[in-house]
């Protein structure tokens, strides 16, 4: 760094007494040398335990939420049309892990129910809930809007329209053995997100209401298109579409789960990789630029990733609303706003939340099953109104 005169703090003494700066320390320009000379490092950091996110805190919170999620999954495994005790669930799980197929069969009917019916469905619910919450977090940071989420913004209905179109045309089935439906939904979601992006660029500081309005209009538009598609489909297909649109989880095929997992893992890794820029982006575009964030590039990347994840989820589970808003909000209140922690915790919590919601959906009126989208909307709708009213009082939009 040579003779560059950068702003550098002197050591503690100088700060306290505001004494003139020594010649050599001005030219040193290196933070490390300043720190070594003080030697109070450990205590200084311990003084401010929550000032920054340490690897230790991150690990402890994440392992806590993982344990909690596992517990919730275990409890949900016991619920269903046929109640199975926790002990039996544990036994069948252990048997299945230890002896594979033979172990599951030796556990009898409960083994089949747990391994082939409930566990796949719970895994699906967990993946879907987790990705909706993760995308919600990213969109909220990007649009600086705590109400943003794929369903509210119309991205989900865009994706649903893409998938409906593919079903109607009969092209969404398989390509080289893999369903291309998620890609159609991705295209639809991308269309919707481009509209949202254009609006967010046109208005430099987007108010909550403008954004919600855009979402309402997009939702209305895509709903109309979907209705049209359903009305010209044959009755059997139309019924299947309706059920799917309501947000329904069913027992998935093994490969469906794997496909979904691949999409979601890619999407989530990208978002997680951008956690720090997302933090900075919540300060607004101009501040973010002044701190060195390539705002446009990161926005585009997050928007495309969100469309991809939303598309994959919608193509399999239909329209499940509000998970992406309720969960991030609640998690943010507990762990804070830092996306390095918020993103993974919200994703895990979202998974656990939808697992519980789906368990309610399949047991509340058993043997009749509710679409899980109905359950999340019943929880999320009132919460949305509460947020809107509470925000209006506090923060100027």
């Amino acid at each position: 760094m040579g003779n560059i005169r950068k702003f550098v703090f002197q050591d503690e003494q100088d700060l306290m007494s505001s004494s003139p700066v020594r010649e050599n320390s001005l030219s040193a320009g290196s933070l490390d040398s300043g720190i070594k000379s003080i030697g109070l490092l450990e205590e200084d950091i311990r003084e401010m335990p929550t000032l920054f996110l340490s690897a230790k805190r991150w690990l402890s919170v994440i392992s806590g939420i993982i344990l909690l999620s596992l517990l919730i999954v275990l409890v949900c495994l016991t619920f269903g049309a046929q109640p199975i005790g926790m002990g039996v669930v544990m036994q069948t799980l252990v048997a299945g892990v230890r002896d594979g197929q033979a172990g599951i069969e030796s556990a009898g009917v409960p083994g089949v129910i747990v391994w082939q019916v409930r566990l796949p469905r719970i895994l699906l619910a967990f993946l879907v809930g987790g990705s909706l919450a993760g995308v919600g977090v990213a969109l909220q940071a990007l649009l600086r809007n705590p109400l943003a989420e794929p369903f509210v913004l119309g991205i989900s209905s865009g994706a649903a329209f893409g998938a409906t179109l593919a079903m109607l045309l009969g092209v969404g089935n398989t390509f080289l053995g893999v369903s291309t439906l998620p890609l159609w939904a991705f295209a639809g979601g991308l269309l919707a997100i481009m509209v949202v992006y254009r609006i967010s660029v046109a208005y430099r500081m987007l108010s909550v209401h403008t954004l919600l309005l855009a979402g309402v209009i997009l939702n209305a538009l895509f709903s109309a298109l979907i209705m049209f598609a359903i009305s010209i489909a044959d009755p059997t297909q139309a019924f299947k579409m309706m059920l799917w649109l309501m947000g329904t989880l069913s027992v998935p095929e093994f490969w469906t789960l794997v496909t979904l997992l691949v999409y979601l893992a890619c999407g989530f890794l990208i978002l997680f990789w951008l956690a720090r820029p997302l933090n900075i982006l919540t300060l607004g575009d101009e501040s973010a630029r002044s701190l060195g964030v390539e705002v446009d590039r990161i926005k585009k990347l997050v928007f495309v990733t969100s469309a991809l994840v939303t598309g994959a989820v919608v193509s399999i589970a239909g329209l499940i609303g509000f998970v992406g808003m309720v969960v991030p909000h609640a998690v943010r209140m507990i762990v804070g706003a830092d996306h390095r922690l918020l993103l993974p915790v919200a994703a895990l919590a979202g998974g656990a939340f939808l697992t519980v919601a789906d368990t309610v959906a399949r047991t509340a009126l058993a043997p009749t099953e509710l679409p899980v989208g109905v359950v999340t909307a019943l929880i999320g709708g009132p919460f949305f109104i509460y947020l809107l009213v509470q925000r209006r009082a506090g923060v100027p939009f």
Partner: protein
Amino acid sequence: MSRQSGSGAAYTIQSLTFTYGRSGRGSGGWGFHHLDCEVGEGKILGIIGPNGSGKTTLLKLFIKILKPQSGMIRLFGKDLTEVSQMEVARLVAFVPQESQQLFPFTIGELVLMGRFPYHRPFDGLGWENPGDVKLARRAMKEMDVDHLAERQISEVSGGERQRALLARALVQEPRVLLLDEPTAFLDLNHQLDIARKLRRLNQEHGLTVVIVSHDLNLASQCCDHLMLLHNGAIIRAGTPQEVIRQEVLKEVYGCSVIVDQHPQSGNPRVSLPV
């Protein structure tokens, strides 16, 4: 990159032309046309002028938030278009006029964001290292917000938030500090405090400071040089004595003011004839 200190200029602006497009202010023809100016290294420069004269626009051009249509901006001799956004952020810190935060970040987290330009791009987890925390802590102490480290941004007063933003700027370890209306929301006590702190940073650390302000008296007291902007043109530039003159201010602001001498510093003082 060859960065020569002592070249005398932090910023050199040559024939800068910038107008807001159709999406901008809409008042056609507004903008900078072939503007030339210089920001001396190690100096405090005040940019003053009426509303809409282009003060904040100029700051935004300095940190690549806005890009000029033509002309050249040099930052320590280097063409700004060839300096990456990250590199700019390591050299120049910007304190915006107001910043809203809807999410529950703490003051400590806000200040630590100033270390972003020193981390690798796309570094998802990128833990702050002990050095970063140390630096943030000192900056907060310097700006007198260290006791607020764990408070949320929305919970503190406007003045405290402003000082936290200044602390964040210091954490960037900049050579140039750009401030947009640094005292706009502050009471007298904190105005004085900020003014003194800026002077001290300038004198002790050789930090170049550019202040955009409506407050002519603050500018007159605080700055080595002033630049008076009006409709995108530099009306006058020089020492406060040269710029803060009754006839000049009348021409630009369109109203008569009283200009006399500050009893302590002898710098020009502006008051309203009511």
